[in-house]
């Protein structure tokens, strides 16, 4: 079983994990994900690979506590093992080389920018990361992202760090030529509503935009079809065809509705876990 090498609380609800997984570290590419399971009878959940160190044989993930399973993951500490880690799954992000690439990380989506920004910067692209959160305490991995790209733009809703406003507002300013200037490619990773807003921001400017979809998944290998996303009118499996898709083609409304299919059960499981914790 893969051992956890290092953990760090990034915010009260997000946690950073470095995991010993040499085979995954050797083959991982930006945009890919792993499937985790933390206990017998547990769910298989997809988590984006934030970074990998091929020499050390480790991968990095950032997990946000949203339900029972992610809470269980976040209870794990360095030295403990994770029952199942399978990957890397999904396809790598493909961006044509040589342009100005803007990675937009909303909330814990910033984590996925680590390996992506590094790869793009190393190959010679001009890179900008926009990291956004409600306030400065919820911004994550700023110091880690900073050395990996040319420019870093911080945005907070309350103005406690960087630009006061949404990532999309800063992105719109950049498209008009402010700051690091208009990007040729945008990759947005974060909550569905934010990714949809980014898609709307770049649509009119006709900027090639990718979003990393995070639908419900069971196996993560193409077997269940539960993760299907409508892209350009066609059903695509996020686990094999994605998870990154052309933002301007994605049916976000459908994707958001489908993600709520098990909301009732998710609440039930979270409540149950909270009760169990309180009973201890």
């Amino acid at each position, binding site marked *: 079983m893969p051992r956890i090498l290092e953990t760090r609380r990034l915010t009260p609800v997000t946690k950073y994990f470095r995991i010993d997984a040499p*085979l*995954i570290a050797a*083959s991982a590419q930006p945009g890919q994900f792993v499937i985790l*399971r933390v*206990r017998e*009878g*547990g*769910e*298989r959940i997809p988590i984006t690979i934030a970074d990998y160190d091929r020499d050390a044989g480790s991968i990095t993930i950032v997990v946000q506590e949203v339900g*029972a*399973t992610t809470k269980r993951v976040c209870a794990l500490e360095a030295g403990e093992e994770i*029952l*199942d*880690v*399978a*990957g*890397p*799954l999904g396809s790598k992000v493909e961006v044509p080389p040589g342009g100005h690439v803007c990675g937009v990380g909303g909330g814990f989506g910033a984590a996925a920018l680590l390996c992506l920004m590094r790869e793009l910067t190393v190959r010679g692209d001009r890179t900008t990361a926009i990291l956004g959160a409600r306030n400065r305490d919820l911004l994550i991995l700023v110091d880690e992202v900073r050395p990996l790209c040319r420019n870093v733009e911080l945005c907070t809703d309350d103005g406690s760090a960087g630009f006061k406003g949404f990532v999309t507002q800063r992105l719109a300013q950049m498209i008009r030529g402010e700051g690091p200037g208009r990007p040729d490619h945008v990759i947005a990773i974060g909550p569905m509503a934010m990714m949809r807003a980014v898609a709307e921001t770049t649509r009119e400017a006709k900027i090639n935009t990718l979003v990393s979809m995070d639908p419900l998944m*069971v*196996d993560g*290998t*193409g*077997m*269940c*079809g*539960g993760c*299907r996303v*409508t892209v350009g009118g066609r*059903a695509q499996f996020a686990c*094999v065809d994605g998870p990154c898709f052309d933002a301007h083609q994605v049916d976000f409304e*459908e994707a958001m*509705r*489908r993600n*709520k*299919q*098990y909301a009732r*059960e*998710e609440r*039930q*499981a979270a409540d*149950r876990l909270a009760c169990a914790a309180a009973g201890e």
Partner: protein
Amino acid sequence: MPVKRTEKTRMPAREARVRARDFQEVNRGYTTFHAAFEAERCLRCQEPICVDGCPVKIPIPDFIHAVAIGDMAGAAKILRTSNPLPAICGRVCPQEIQCESECSMVKRCESVAIGHLERFVADWERTRPLAVMAATTRKEKIAVIGAGPSGLVCAGELARLGYPVTIYEALHAPGGVLRYGIPEFRLPKAVLDWEIGVLKATGVEIVCNVIIGKTLALDELLDKHGYAAVFIGTGAGLPQFLGIPGENLNGVMSANEFLTRINLMRAYEFPEADTPVRVSKRVAVIGAGNTAMDAVRTALRMGADEASIVYRRSEKEMGARVEEYHHALEEGVKFHWLTNPLEVVGNAEGWVTGLRCQRMKLGEPDASGRARPIPIVGSELLLPVDNVILAIGTTPNPLLTRTTAGLLTNKKGCLVADEQTGQTPKARVFAGGDAVTGAATVILAAGAGKRAAQAIHDALAPRR
């Protein structure tokens, strides 16, 4: 001279009303008395053509004779040398179109119940201490991709021939479709676990959570990890969708998703197990193959008030095993024959409320040899349902072929491999089962795995 009896000894089954609400196995299995009684019906033909009907060529009259004279250990040995998964095949093979259809008795009366006897012997064997049968005598390592029927059988055969074998499985548990697809009430997990335990006892190593083509490249297995040959048994796991409007409404899912949530992830134990599944009052399953029967009967067991099959052809063209169909009927499944879905209808919140269909009639046979369904104009109807489960077939998963140079696929996405040996155009790489044929049966996959094991052995240890 045995008394001539025209009918099979009936398989004892649990009462339909009771079993349709739980996941325990439907068939109880023969008693020793049933088995001996049925075994006596075998005519022990000079040229047993039943064996020709068996994809793994079990010497059927021999094992049945052993049962008839009470030599269960002998019967078990005969079975196991030709079929590494007898307890599974005895339960899930479509015997009526294989061995039993060739039985000499069929011309005059019912065939010998070969499948029931196979199950009986395998179940007897399960009550005995495990006899380890193989020792590693060869140095060439073999890798098998996928721990489903073809991979398990191929690995078992190679281990029997003395090879060190490692199976790489993408999911967290081995078994492939035997674990995620076939429900507990038809194939108990304890039976599957026992068969896998036998394989492990013969030296087969199973590594889960490794996706060949992603975690490791196939070429890495050959070049870097020192495997002498690779067998691909990745199955046909990619679910097909109809492409009709409303297919992405909440409450519509593939049978693969529905069955995986329940069989692999144990959604029936939610919230003790963490994966949920939403089964509503009225469930429609589209399709009429074994997967459709598994899904519709599972829906009943998950508490559906009404579970029905919607199929565009008639009862005669249905792909399911006869036994599954009969069991489904007994359990109260409804059948809408000659009914073609046109659209899934939903409410304002995006949940399924119905399935709009059209009545069909049958025309001339099409490319598949089955009568082509033709729409009847003005025959539209709306079935009020809250869940739609699609069981209209699966295709091979492109994950491995997309990432491996030198493999070829046909236009259906199936791997190109020699029918007899499983050899692919890529040197030292063999393939078999659903990955090559498209979705078929457990036993055809087992047969392909077995032949490929022999071909790998022939290539590595040429017979002089």
